[in-house]
């Protein structure tokens, strides 16, 4: 059931209890977790934090801890499946689910006691009405019994007539029932067919903090990073992003209005957040402008930088702006001040000439101390690469904890490590995209495009992680759409496969929706993968919270794909 008053029905209940936090592995969840941890620390709430990367880990963690905890908070996991069925909890355990995955499973919506959803109801959820899906089974049986009883005590003639009437009634009822069930299946199918995302969990948590008047600039920054993560990973539409930015902008002005006041200005060490209409270039303030232009998906796809023509066009672009190559290849902080001053406007003008209309985007940046200025997308890239770092240093959860720590202002060394890893990751993505397009690895299978990374491709290990692979596929699709001349292919979705674990022979497969101007980012691959796996009885593992990411055995790949093609055409 939906929680209408977050404070009374959620926070006040857990403030005196011990709580288990189950947090999914994405940046939005990390940010929401940070905000909640800060609130817990203020109120001395005892909690245990367990990072979970998939359904199996969720179940294991639940089984381990179910005797000690009665209150579970799930962040960015658990809304889109029937929780009670999977976890089989006791009667008196309560689950608070703060998840941006949609559609929310109908059982979770209509369960009144154990499952509470911390979701804003302004999100258009389109949950089917209760009567359309659930029907009291007892009513049916009572009616049948009554009709049978009546048929016993009356005269033969009338009995026969009444008997016929009753038979007709019963068949009518059965037919109605069958119609109702067919309609129910249809409604549920429509409702659960497409996967998409709602408001960021970090923003929901910040709202909770605001309602309790405990919101701080730090928490606001985490909410901003959570929202930006959704935008970087292309999970929400442009409209929603702009609306949410507007909401956050109000909070930012409320917290940061003292920066203009000369008399009582804040210490330089205090954190300030500023709204910026900034360039869309990834990490450009921590890299050189040239590298950033080459490794940002938007510019690299529009200028088609994988071809020689593209490289020439890049040089033209830079020449058009009057930026000397030597300057542009230097670290951004060492560029001439005169060039940096009007950089954004200059780039925007030239970009318009080269067909890149959306080079600037509304975002926020944070500023503390004399040296440290970061934009929200920088933090998102850094944290993602820290979390999915393939170099294993210690137990499974160290990467998660490191990424969580890097979000605090005191751990700048971890943040810088993350930025370096992010640069490597972006470079690897661009090189892989370039090689895929140049060697025509993206093939049209009819209803979708398919690309598979081979074993020996450089950096292929980086793409055995779900978020990196998703990022790679989105960039690949965008570049492919810019490079192909086939009009029909431009509207197709993409399925991407990469080797996951060589010893076990598994492959990770990701499906993303087609790239269109006004796409609503709804992904049907979740259900499609499930059905294809069932029909071919392939050995698949639907472990990720997002249904469109699965793992399967390499041998089953071809028959799975064939089933998928026949399903979707």
């Amino acid at each position: 059931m939906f929680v209408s008053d977050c404070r009374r029905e959620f926070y006040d209940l857990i403030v005196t209890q011990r709580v288990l936090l189950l947090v999914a592995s994405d940046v939005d969840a990390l940010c929401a977790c940070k905000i909640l941890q800060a609130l817990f620390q203020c109120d001395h709430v005892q909690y245990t934090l367990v990072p979970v990367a998939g359904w199996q880990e969720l179940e294991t963690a639940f089984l381990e801890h179910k005797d000690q905890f009665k209150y579970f908070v799930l962040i960015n996991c658990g809304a889109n499946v029937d929780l009670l069925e999977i976890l089989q909890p006791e009667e008196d355990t309560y689950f608070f689910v703060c998840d941006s995955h949609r559609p929310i499973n109908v059982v979770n919506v209509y369960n009144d006691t154990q499952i509470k959803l911390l979701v804003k109801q302004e999100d258009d959820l389109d949950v089917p009405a209760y009567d359309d899906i659930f029907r009291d089974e007892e009513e049916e049986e009572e009616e049948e019994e009554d009709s049978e009883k009546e048929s016993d005590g009356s005269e033969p003639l009338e009995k026969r007539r009444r008997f016929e009437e009753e038979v007709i009634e019963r068949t009518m009822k059965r037919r109605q029932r069958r119609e109702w069930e067919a309609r129910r299946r249809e409604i549920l199918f429509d409702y659960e067919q497409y996967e998409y995302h709602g408001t960021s969990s970090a923003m929901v948590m910040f709202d909770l903090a605001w309602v309790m008047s405990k919101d701080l600039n730090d928490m606001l920054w985490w909410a901003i990073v959570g929202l930006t993560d959704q935008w970087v990973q292309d999970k929400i539409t442009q409209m929603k992003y702009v609306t949410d930015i507007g909401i956050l902008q109000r909070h930012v002005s409320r917290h940061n209005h003292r920066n203009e006041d000369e008399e009582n200005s804040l210490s330089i060490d205090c954190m300030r957040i500023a709204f910026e209409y900034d360039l869309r270039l990834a990490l450009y303030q921590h890299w050189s402008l040239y590298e950033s232009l080459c490794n940002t998906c938007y510019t690299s796809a529009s200028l088609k930088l994988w071809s020689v023509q593209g490289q020439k066009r890049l040089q033209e672009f830079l020449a058009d702006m009057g930026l000397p190559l030597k300057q542009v290849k230097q670290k951004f902080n060492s560029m001439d001040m005169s060039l940096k001053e009007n950089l954004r406007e200059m780039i925007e003008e030239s970009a318009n000439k080269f067909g890149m209309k959306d080079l600037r985007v509304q975002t926020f940046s944070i500023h503390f101390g004399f040296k440290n200025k970061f934009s929200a997308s920088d933090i998102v890239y850094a944290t993602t690469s820290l979390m999915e770092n393939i170099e294993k240093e210690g137990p499974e959860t160290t990467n998660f904890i490191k990424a969580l720590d890097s979000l605090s202002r005191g751990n700048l060394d971890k943040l810088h490590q993350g930025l370096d890893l992010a640069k490597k990751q972006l470079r690897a993505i661009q090189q892989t995209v370039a090689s895929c397009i140049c060697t025509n690895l993206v093939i049209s299978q009819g209803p979708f495009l398919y690309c598979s990374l081979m074993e020996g491709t450089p950096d292929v290990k980086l793409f055995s992680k779900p978020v990196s692979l998703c990022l790679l596929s989105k960039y690949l699709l965008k570049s492919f759409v810019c490079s192909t001349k086939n009009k029909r292919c431009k509207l197709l979705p993409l399925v991407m496969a990469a080797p996951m674990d060589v010893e076990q022979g598994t492959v990770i497969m990701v499906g993303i929706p087609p790239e269109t101007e006004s796409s609503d980012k709804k992904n049907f691959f979740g259900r499609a993968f499930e059905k294809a796996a069932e029909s071919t009885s392939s050995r698949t593992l639907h472990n990720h919270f997002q249904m469109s990411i699965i793992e399967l055995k390499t041998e089953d790949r071809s028959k799975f794909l064939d089933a998928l093609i026949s399903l979707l055409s």
Partner: protein
Amino acid sequence: MEPAEVEFLAEKELVTIVPNFSLDRIHLIGGDLGPFNPGLPVEVPVWLAINLKQRQKCRLIPPEWMDVGKLEEIRDQERKEDTFTPMPSPYYMELTKLLLNYASDNIPRADEIRTLVKDTWDTRMAKLRLSADSFVRQQEAHAKLDNLTLMEINTTGTFLTQALDHMYKLRTNLQPGEGSHSQEF
């Protein structure tokens, strides 16, 4: 004493806060605290103020001497005089550090205050070194320094006393004593 111990003693000083919660008077061994009412200023020891601030339960009000004008006067006064001038609080350095670390958003012009207090501290330490130097050179028997704070005494205390001890030992060894014949090969 360790500087941390001096800071611990400094945390007993009283400072004004404005809480956002309410609580009745609490009775501790060292004295009573409270009652706390939202929006009404109350005086509490620094250790409690910092803890409440970290839990976002209060807003700190800087002490009245922590103001740019007053601190400038103090600094100029200190530079003019040869001896030590009285400081606004016996724990001015520790209080500045604690309050500016944890509550710099409640203190206006915090960076300037930090610089001014550091300037005053530097002047006083220079005077202390000068006076210790002249004390040793002129081999005085005792000296009297007014208006020093515990933190300043603590920085030179150990070193000065141990150095004087060493010098005493060396000096007594210089004078020819009864059993100190030099050895010859």
